[in-house]
């Protein structure tokens, strides 16, 4: 038997936690609810959570009337390209930083680590001007450029190579006559699969959520990403709450799916990287 005070404390604890969860989840439920409501039911008082007449009209509007298919495709393509690039550059550089000695290595590594702490917003202007010089403003190349590498990814990979791959394995393969490239591709990379998985999730999420760079680098609607499209559409058509919430649902969906599938890795990984949404 537990003492009454212990039970009271437990009840109090779960009440507080549940109220918290309610506040955390409520905006998502509200978004979901609004996205399935016909426009006549959206602006009502009192607000209702369950739509009286479920409708897919808002999703249809988003896809048919507004070019959100295009935006979605752009986001997928952008996040895909950047994720592959981050994975490739981070694992190569991380491996070399971890297992090879060359002059200037430690200095370069500290440089990489230091830039991981510099916010993008503080150097986006010169970056934009470089894109102007290269004539890639308002092109896909310009859109993806800043996300092709991730300083933190290099650091993350290096730490994992050091922690999980013993020198003996590499040396043994060398004695067997394997080339350095074969060692990297056939031995090192497979051993880093878990780490690579975690890193690709951050890279994907970070690129998917990007907003300020797509905003400044693109001018034609054909290049807009899901996030930018949403931002622009809510700016121009504030009253169309149904479609904008349907669009929001669609932009959350891929991220949500990945999150729920790989929850443990993500929570741990994101917490370590200091990555923001």
């Amino acid at each position, binding site marked *: 038997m537990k003492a009454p005070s212990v039970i009271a404390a437990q009840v109090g*604890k779960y009440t507080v*936690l549940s109220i*918290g*969860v309610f*506040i*955390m989840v*409520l*905006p998502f439920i*509200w978004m979901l609810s*609004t996205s399935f409501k016909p426009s006549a039911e959206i*602006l*009502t008082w009192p607000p209702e959570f369950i739509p009286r007449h479920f409708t897919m009209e808002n999703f249809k509007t988003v896809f048919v009337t507004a070019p959100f298919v295009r935006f979605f495709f752009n986001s997928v393509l952008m996040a895909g390209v950047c994720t592959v690039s981050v994975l490739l550059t981070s694992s*190569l*550089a991380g491996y*070399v*930083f971890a297992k*090879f000695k*060359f002059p200037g290595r430690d200095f370069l590594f500290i*440089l990489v680590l230091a830039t991981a702490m*510099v*916010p993008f*917003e*503080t*150097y*986006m*202007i*010169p970056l934009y*001007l*470089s894109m*102007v010089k290269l004539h890639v403003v308002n092109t896909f190349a310009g859109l993806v*450029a800043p996300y092709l*590498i991730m*300083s933190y990814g*290099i650091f993350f990979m290096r730490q994992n190579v050091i922690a999980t791959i013993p020198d003996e394995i590499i040396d043994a393969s060398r004695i067997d006559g394997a080339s*350095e490239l074969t060692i990297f591709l056939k031995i090192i990379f497979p051993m880093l699969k878990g780490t690579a998985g975690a890193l690709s999730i951050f890279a994907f*999420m970070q690129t998917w*959520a990007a*907003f*300020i760079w797509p905003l*400044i680098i693109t001018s034609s609607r054909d290049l807009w990403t899901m*996030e930018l499209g949403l*931002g622009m559409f*809510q*700016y*121009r058509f*504030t009253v169309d709450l149904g479609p*904008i*919430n349907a669009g*929001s649902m669609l*932009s*959350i969906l891929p*991220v*949500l799916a990945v999150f*729920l599938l790989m929850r443990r890795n993500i*929570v741990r990984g*994101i*917490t370590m990287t*200091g990555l*923001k*949404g």
Partner: protein
Amino acid sequence: MPPPFAFSRQGGRMNRMEYKKRVFAYSAILPVLAIFIFLRIMPIFQNFLYSFFNSTVVNPTNDFAGLQNYIDLFTDTLFLVSLRNTTLFAVCVTVFSVSIALFLALLLSGKTSLGGLYETLYFLPVITPMVPVAVVWKWIYDPTYGLLNYFLSWFGVKPLGWLVYPDLAIWSIIIMSVWKVIGYNMVIFLVGIREIPDSYIEAAMIDGANRLQIFRYVILPLLKPIFLFVMVISTINAYNVFTQVFIMTSGPQGAPGNAVRTLVFDIYENAFRYFKTGYAAAEAVILFLIVLALTVAQLKSGGKKE
């Protein structure tokens, strides 16, 4: 100095292998470094450079201005308002999100059934991109049909123009931003609290300490490095606030511009709307210095602990 003959037996083969290693290392790292320099190092330094020029998009370094951009900044009301708003925003988001997160982490730290589920749900806003979240919060804040005014009406509160009243607008964005980061801070605290050995807490309990005393004298001191880390990360992220401000202040239902004008928003407008590139670069330098100061403060206090 090792005797030279130690290497001589396999010398030729080792050198060949060393040579191959070198070739691989350089050919792997140099392209990555080149991209890295072009996309990170160069812009970071160029930003300082451009801040001393009357730069334009076409000619960033044609017209040297010395410190003029910086002097102008500190007489520019919009910049000063932005700096003040951003600082208020950063301090409030950090204080509220850190204290609520710590409280929740303490509740979740023990053996809790459904603990994993709670963690997941609190983490949901963290992984969600900012734009959709800002869109729905803007709708929640709607003065006429918004959900928040509806809930408040149960307690007899008159409808408020959350994003419309200039005094209230920044607080609305603070609330939403706190909501967004609580889960992140909470998970870091949870990691820290779970690393505290049970024996410490048991020992304190045997000595007759109550819950509050255990928190104050056992948990809090051990959590100090993590606490500082969370504070600094939160503040840095908050100083870079942009997306939610852009979404929630734009359009006819949004807040009046200057009431929630923040640093990055001001940088964005100066650089990409008015094309005052050098001036905006000077603002970005100020932001950089703020972030640098915070990072150094954290490294220093963290270094003392370890």
